[in-house]
């Protein structure tokens, strides 16, 4: 059962990779990267069950957290153009 899930996830991973390589714009690549992050996270959970050690779910949590941090960092960067900086365009704190 878990092997079936893992194979499906591998297929999804490969397809997302195709999009990342084809992707005409950077945003396509980012979307693919985000999907790859999600799929990798699920893959970890499945792998943990497959090898009979489900305590590795911590790792999946780390993936999820850092995936979003990385994506948002890149996006912030693009939103503000080439000179966009983490820390610019910010209102003073209420």
């Amino acid at each position, binding site marked *: 059962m878990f092997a079936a899930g893992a194979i499906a996830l591998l297929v999804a991973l490969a397809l997302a990779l195709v999009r990342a390589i084809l992707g005409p714009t950077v945003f396509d690549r980012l979307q693919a990267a985000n999907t790859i992050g999600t799929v990798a996270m699920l893959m970890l959970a499945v792998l943990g069950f497959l090898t009979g*050690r489900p*305590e590795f779910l911590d790792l999946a949590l780390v993936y999820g957290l850092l995936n979003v941090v990385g994506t948002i960092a890149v996006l912030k960067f693009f939103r503000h153009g080439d000179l966009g900086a983490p820390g610019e365009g910010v209102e003073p704190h209420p």
Partner: protein
Amino acid sequence: MSFTGHYTYWVTIFLMIAGLYIVIARGNLVKKLIGLGIFQTSVYILYIAPGKLIGGTAPILAASFHTYSNPLPHVLILTAIVVGVATLALGLAIVVRIREAYDSIEEDEILEIDRSEGEAQ
């Protein structure tokens, strides 16, 4: 000598060569650092893949398991990754300084500027 038995080595070597190629063939300094990063990750696999035992499990001792993969490479690589990112930061800092001094991060342009300055003196 079987295909499956040596496949990881070959992928490792491919990654290593790709990293090496980027480092020696590309002039852009940031790209060179990324190439160095790929080279580094190939070393991680080179260390970790031989430590894996099929049928073994991660080296966290539990009563229900008896075969464990080799923990020693994990320790070495664990520290190497963190050191790797610290040195990446150092390299990037140097690149930023170079950019400010030469207004370029292309190796050829930097060499060109150096040469013309040398002739001027």
